[in-house]
């Protein structure tokens, strides 16, 4: 039950920085998810907080007090691992009781607490089983309540859902979230799965190459990505590098990969830049439609995915866009070879300069989401 602060935390292995000045302030009860591709330093960061990796720079503070000198067994952090790490020679109940035994909790109190925890995890009936007799989801629930039983100051989750299949993942994820919120636990979770991260987090930290790329809510990262990497990782935007040509009216012209896009907005830049387009905010229009926020192309691949249709549209020899539109809309699945126009509004595009900083809009003004909705239906 504490405020966890990481202050310019760093870990150097030889010449490589596994984590590079990671700073983060997590107030009591918040769930922060460290997200990023493998090797981005998220696990190293978590292990530094847990005490299994000694940082080469920076500090970890709990309620303002440095805990770097404390060994792992005195940090009072509940740890949940990807492959559960249940003690295979102890029954479920003994696993849950382990932390209390280590603390010397008197037996009656210990048994009551174990009982409470097993009820919480809906595992009362399995108390005397050995872990290997349990399903993956049950094992992870045991691991979770084992960590909660010691009433940790901070809960650390290392890819807790990665070993579970899709249906269980959602269920165990909900369990974790409910128990965490109920206990008001300051929590850090690590994952490489952005859907999992989006579903679980109060706040996200996106990392790459040991550095924090952006910290913020799901909406912050989705709507206001700090750089092309964030834009590409969150929501899997199509990220294009090319040249921006400023125009006096309408949108700027962006040339890349042998094709051109007429952007929806105008930006205070000229020359090399990066454009990120959100597939779910693009739509297909009849060929010939033009204007700000448009490009002409040919459908290369078309798939019906249930909730959405996905089209891969070829705009030039090296230029392709993914367009994802809801099947509930009034559009149809195009056939490969169909000539189409791709249309979008300013909300779909993000433009970054050569230094990867996001460029502000000049004109037209961003369109409010409600008008965007009506426009989309009227166009279709």
């Amino acid at each position, binding site marked *: 039950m504490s405020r966890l602060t990481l202050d310019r935390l760093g870990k150097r292995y030889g010449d490589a920085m596994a984590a590079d000045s990671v700073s983060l302030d997590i107030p009591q009860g918040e769930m922060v998810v460290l997200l990023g591709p493998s090797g981005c330093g998220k696990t190293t960061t978590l292990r530094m907080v*847990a*005490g*299994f990796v000694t940082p080469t720079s920076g500090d970890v503070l709990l309620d303002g007090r440095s805990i770097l000198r404390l*060994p*792992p*067994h*005195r*940090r*009072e*952090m*509940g*740890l949940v*691992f990807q*492959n559960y*790490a*249940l*003690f*295979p*020679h102890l029954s479920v109940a003994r696993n849950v009781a*382990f*932390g209390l035994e*280590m*603390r010397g909790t008197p037996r009656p109190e210990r048994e009551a607490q174990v009982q409470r925890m097993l009820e919480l995890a809906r595992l009362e009936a399995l108390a005397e089983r050995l872990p290997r007799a349990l399903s993956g989801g049950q094992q992870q629930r045991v*691991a979770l309540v*084992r*960590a909660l039983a*010691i009433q940790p100051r901070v809960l*650390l989750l290392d890819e807790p859902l990665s070993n579970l299949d899709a249906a269980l993942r959602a269920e165990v994820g909900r369990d974790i979230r409910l128990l965490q919120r109920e206990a008001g636990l300051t929590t850090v979770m690590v994952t490489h799965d952005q859907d999992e991260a989006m579903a679980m987090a109060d706040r996200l930290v996106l990392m790459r190459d040991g550095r924090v790329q952006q910290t913020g809510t799901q909406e912050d990262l989705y709507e206001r990505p700090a750089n092309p990497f964030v834009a590409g990782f969150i929501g899997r935007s199509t990220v294009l590098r090319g040249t921006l040509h400023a125009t006096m009216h309408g949108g700027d012209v962006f040339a890349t990969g042998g094709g051109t896009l007429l952007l929806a907005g105008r930006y205070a830049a000229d020359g090399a830049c990066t454009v990120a387009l959100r597939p779910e905010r693009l739509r297909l229009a009849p060929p010939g439609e033009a204007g700000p926020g448009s490009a002409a192309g040919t459908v290369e691949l078309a798939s019906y995915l249930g909730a959405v249709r996905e089209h891969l549209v070829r705009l030039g020899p090296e230029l392709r866009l993914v367009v994802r539109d809801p099947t509930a809309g009034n559009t149809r699945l195009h056939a490969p070879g169909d000539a189409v126009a791709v249309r979008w509004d300013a909300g779909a595009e993000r433009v970054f300069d050569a230094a990867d900083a996001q460029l502000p809009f000049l004109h037209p003004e961003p369109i409010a989401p409600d008008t965007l909705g009506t426009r989309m239906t009227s166009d279709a």
Partner: protein
Amino acid sequence: MATTGQALRPARAAAPLLAPATLVVAVMLVAPLLLVLRFSLDRYDPTELMIETVTGANYLRFAADPFYRAVLRTTLGVAVACTVLCLLLGVPIGYRLARMRGRWKTACVLATVLPLVVGSTVRAVGWMILFARGGVIDATLRGLTGHGLELMYTTTAVVSGIVSINLPFVILTVQSAIETIDAELEEAAQSLGAAPGRAFWRVVWPLALPGITVAAILCFILAMNAYATPYLLGGPRFQMMAPLLFWEFGTNNNWPFASALALVLMTTTLVLTAAGNLLIPRRYRI
């Protein structure tokens, strides 16, 4: 009925494949053992050597003579001491080795195995140079303190020699047992408040126990049957079973008594191994 037939089929199909191996085991192991058993019931005569009969005289001689009982006691004492020492040294080393990574690990495993390349006789000669009167230890101590220390032909010398031979086997067996235990289990235990030593005793030790038992049994059997080391480092007055029975067999030509000694040694080893295994909690037994 049909399912039984199907279940039987693979077994029946495997029979011809298993037959040669079974035959080799029967001929090479069981038959000689039966032969030894038969010899041990014969009578020895200094001129006619082995006289075919059925008598328990050889076993009675062993049981009645305090000398032979003392030899068995010495053998047992040395074997138990070696096993305890090998576990005390081998378990921590095996654990460290199991948790090492990369190039250092390869180097350390190699360093563990390398002494095995030198045969036990050559190694015993090495120990002799260290232990003998005027040897390395004796000369050094004499130079430093004025009093020498002669270890040759002592229990210390024999136990040191056997431990040095058995230790690599114990280390490697323990290492492979601990490697199957996920290091994350120790981290989990530590995060739950167990100091590293406690995490080892509560998590690694019980899980490694079957492997450690194998190591202990291996070490015990090797020590019980040690021949070259007690012969070379123990000298003529330090008697253990294996050299004694070879002496009876080779020098005295008393095959019946040597056979009886061999069976006593084997039975003692087997019984004690089984008894030791019983001391271990049921679910960890091998």
